[in-house]
């Protein structure tokens, strides 16, 4: 299930791309599976078609999807991610910022550690 928050500071297209990426990384879709059409997903989420199309294009650029006119989006076989030069800092910085935001909003350190451990465990088992 894909969930977005229209009041979030994160742009909607990015939320859609993030949500779909999470599903793809978790292996909920096999190569060749079809995703909902841009129109159908836009109706379900109540957002403009272009917003969904932008999210699909972002995922296509990352190699997750194959987009064909009038045929929708198909999941691609993605053997390995393109080599990134930014290194682990690309992941670590936003994670630190997210943790800082959570602490500022009053979430306890204990809860955050538990969530991080759970995530690490799922990651180790091949899930997400």
């Amino acid at each position, binding site marked *: *299930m*894909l*969930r*977005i*928050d*229209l*009041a*979030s500071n994160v742009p909607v297209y990015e939320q859609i791309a993030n949500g*779909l990426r999470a*599903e793809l990384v978790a292996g*909920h*879709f096999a190569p060749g*599976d079809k*995703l*909902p059409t841009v*129109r*159908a*997903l*836009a*109706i*379900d*989420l*109540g*957002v*403009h*078609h272009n917003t969904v199309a932008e999210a699909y294009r972002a995922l296509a650029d990352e190699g997750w999807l194959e987009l064909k006119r009038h045929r929708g989006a198909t999941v691609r076989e993605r053997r390995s991610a393109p080599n990134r030069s930014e290194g682990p800092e690309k992941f670590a910085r936003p994670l630190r910022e997210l943790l800082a935001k959570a602490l500022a909003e009053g979430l306890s350190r204990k809860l955050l550690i538990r969530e991080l451990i759970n995530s690490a465990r799922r990651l180790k088992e091949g899930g997400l």
Partner: protein
Amino acid sequence: MSPTLVIRDVLLALATFSAVMHWFLPRLTRPDLYFAVTVAPEFRDTTEGRLILSRYRRGLIGASGLTLALLGALVLTPPPALSTLALLFQLGAYFAVYYRARRLVLPHALAPTTIREARIGTPTRKIPGGWMTMSGPFALLCACAAYLAAHWQQIPALLALHFGTDGQPDRWVARSIGTVFLPILIGVVILSVLTLLLYAMTHWLRPIYVSGAQGENESRFRRTASTVLLVIEYWIAALFSYIAVRPLLPSSLERPPRAIAMIAGLIAITGGAVLMWLGQGGNRMRSQHPSGTGSVRPVGDRTEDRLWKLGVFYFNRNDPAVMVERRFGIGYTVNFGHPVAWIIVLIPLLSVVAITTTIALRHTVR
């Protein structure tokens, strides 16, 4: 039974059905929508909420009494069709009663959740029975058109266009391609719009919940509403097929049989009762906040109150959905901010008015 009494009884049945439905409507909507206003789910059970409902129902009783009195007076005044004004009065009076209740709820309005959900994967947009079932009514009308063309010489020179309250024809039209195939044409226009409506209900409608008990309830309601619409399509195809081939039928079958009206009534009452029983995520379902988000805002129908004009007409240009769930009432309504909605609403009206006016003006013989 005299035609006047039949009309009185039919109107009385319609007025009673409308009264019963409006009595229960406030409790058949989602718990966090009260008189088309987004409120806390528990609001309807507070003293204030109950008081508003009680005032609404008192207003309904008053409006129903006035409708009955008007119906009683009009049914004795010729022509009998004048009695239908009583139903229009009832509609207007009920709207006034609803609107007063809505104004009392408005100060308690809350902003709905900003969370939106979508199911990825399993396709849920399906027409019951698929395209084959949906093309059946069109096939029936096409078969009738072929039958009429094959028996053209047997069609009388004058065709009955209108029947009086005594069941006898009182207006005729001369035989021509336009007049013979007019019922088929009107049937096709009506069926096209209903098919568009059916497609919109299954493909251009945003679900409010995509999972859990409420999601299942919504899907069940949508499937049932689509099936009812499909049954109506078959009934309309049968009705217009009968009207089209009537000149070729034996004289005993030329008068419109009562079965047509009885079947229509049966469909309306059964369909209405089933949909009311199912609700639409309504009072039988417990309220549910989007889990895991910490949101305390009501879900409602995930649309803002300001987009609902008078709480009845949804107008949102930024929403790609053509149809949305009605806030006060059973079923769905169109998004008037979407161009396709205007096609659904206007084209059938204009087509039928244009066709019948043209034919009546050019070919009617009294």
